[in-house]
């Protein structure tokens, strides 16, 4: 992993978190190390139960690591209880105080910090404006919509100007359109406030569009950290490739290996070249990963061939699902252009051309 220009806001060093004892023991986090830079929009991405919330809870101080340490701007925060950590959380359920108004909710943190009334009022007004909720300041939180509650939760967490903002799947309760709006809104807020965001999601598209960097997690481990482009174009492991975007997997035999390049023979007999993920030394058999948009269906001969099983039209592009001669399925995604390009029929025999640099060999 290339390391850190600039300061690290959070450093997680060898953190393990174990729940339960004896037989029933589970490691929710298994020796996780990651550095999160100042002012970055950092996303923890992974399937349900992989330990995302657990990591956030350790940073917020609601729970303590079984092993390892967490540094905030270089100093260990283990001795600090949650109410002394300059870190705020936007909870998945929002957790707005139902007995207070919107304005009181937003002012709560500042009040607890003992700020003078005038300063609190000014800051609350500023926050209301930032999240565009000026008109609803006096409402009870039970009298506003889900999207508005989301904004209040954000404003409340931002008001004390934390060093780091933790967001645990803040958008998952919203409907599609609102979620899209809030994604843009969140990016804007992060940009305007300059606060480091640690954002949790299990939605890969959300992660790709919003983040400066992403950490992909699976069963308590961080598999890869990188920019959205890195993660998508150069997944380090099969799991990452599978989790981010659609992917085709083909069995292959390695013929020769030369630095980061390999020559492989597919089951169909076709020989193609593939890149090998950094630091991975495959031998013998391997799985080749090909993104649907990096391959092309053609009428006639390709690198591999099969029969069209289904054609799905998506407006901007078309997905062609092909049953290969060896029984595997393979998906090709082609851009649609008006009047141009070949169309395919179900049952038609087609070839698949695998683009240069399209195939990658990954660790399972």
């Amino acid at each position, binding site marked *: 992993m290339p390391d850190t220009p600039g300061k690290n806001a959070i450093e997680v060093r060898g953190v393990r978190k174990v729940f339960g004892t004896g037989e029933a023991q589970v490691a929710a986090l298994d020796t996780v190390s990651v550095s999160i830079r100042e002012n970055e929009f950092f996303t923890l991405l992974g399937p349900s139960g992989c330990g995302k919330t657990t990591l956030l809870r350790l940073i917020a101080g609601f729970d303590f690591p079984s092993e390892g340490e967490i540094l905030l701007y270089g100093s260990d925060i283990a001795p600090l209880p949650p*109410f002394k950590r300059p870190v705020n959380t936007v*909870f998945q359920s929002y*957790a707005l105080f139902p007995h207070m108004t919107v304005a009181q909710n937003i002012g709560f*943190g500042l009040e607890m910090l003992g700020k003078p009334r005038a300063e609190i009022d000014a800051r609350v007004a500023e926050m209301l404006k930032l999240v565009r909720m000026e008109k609803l300041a006096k409402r009870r939180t039970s009298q506003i919509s889900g999207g508005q509650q989301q904004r209040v939760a954000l404003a409340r967490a931002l008001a004390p100007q934390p060093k780091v903002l933790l967001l645990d799947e803040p958008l998952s309760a919203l409907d599609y359109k609102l979620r899209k709006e809030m994604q843009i809104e969140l990016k804007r807020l992060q940009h305007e406030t300059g606060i480091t965001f640690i954002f949790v999601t299990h939605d890969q598209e959300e992660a790709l569009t919003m983040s400066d960097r992403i950490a992909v997690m699976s069963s308590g481990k961080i598999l890869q950290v990188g920019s959205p482009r890195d993660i998508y174009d150069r997944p380090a492991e099969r799991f990452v490739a599978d989790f981010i975007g659609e992917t085709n997997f083909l069995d292959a035999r390695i013929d020769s290996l030369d630095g980061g390049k390999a020559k492989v023979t597919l089951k169909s007999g076709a020989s193609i070249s593939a890149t090998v993920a950094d630091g991975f030394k495959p031998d013998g058999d391997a799985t080749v990963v090909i993104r649907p948009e990096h391959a092309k269906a053609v009428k006639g001969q390709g690198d591999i061939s099969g029969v069209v099983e289904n054609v799905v039209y998506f407006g901007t592009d078309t997905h062609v699902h092909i049953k290969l001669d060896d029984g595997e399925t393979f998906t090709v995604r082609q851009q649609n252009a008006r009047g141009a390009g070949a169309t395919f029929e179900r049952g038609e025999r087609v070839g698949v051309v695998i683009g240069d640099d399209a195939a990658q060999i990954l660790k399972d």
Partner: protein
Amino acid sequence: MAKRFSIRQQTGFTAIAAACFVLLYLPIVVLVAYAFNDSTSVSEWGGFSLRWFVSAWSNVQVIDASLRSLQIASCAAILATIAATMAALATTRTQAYRGLTFKYAFINQPLMVPEIVTGVALLIFFAQIKVATGYSGLGYLIAAHTAFCIPFAYLPIRARLENMDLTLERAAADLYATPWKAFRRVTLPLLWPGIIAGLMLAFVISLDDVVITEFVKSGGQDTLPTYMLGQIRRGITPEVNAISTVFLLLSVVIVTLFFFLSRKRD
């Protein structure tokens, strides 16, 4: 087509329901009606009159016992509610551990041990303290009532705490509230309806108690229920009806008041 099962359509449902209501409410209706009876008999109607209310009002013993009842019930209810709130916090705001079930049982003990046993035990226990200290005031009754009121106050408070979203307290801590401030500003305001319900229950239970009071009270410490019991032994006049009616009215008012108070808090 199968008809949906409806309990209302079962034979006898209406009859059983009606019988239950009659059994529950008819005696009370009769009791209240006869409080306005002009005759000295509790079973013969002799015309409408308020004389028994007047008589009860001017009966020093009745007033004395009523005030004592209210005094004991207020003190016991408040003390029991405070203890129950702390107990509820201690048993819900903690990781489940072995012995927690035992703790529940311990707190709820007065619900399970027969009152008469508690009464006798307290009688003996307090007798020794009386000898040792010479104190023989209302404190014993208040202490005894507090003890058996705790589980009644505890149950609604615990229910409220268990239904409360724990992330609210976490959010408070996250926003720089010390544990005490988080409790004051978040937990307590949300707990109020439970506390009020607990207080109300404890108050009514204390007001009503006969068995334990009978054992624990010293001479001249009659509460209204024990006084009424004594009266009935001696021959019963509609004055008892009048007192009961006032009590009934009082508890209806209290319950309604608390109900609206707790609704508003929600």
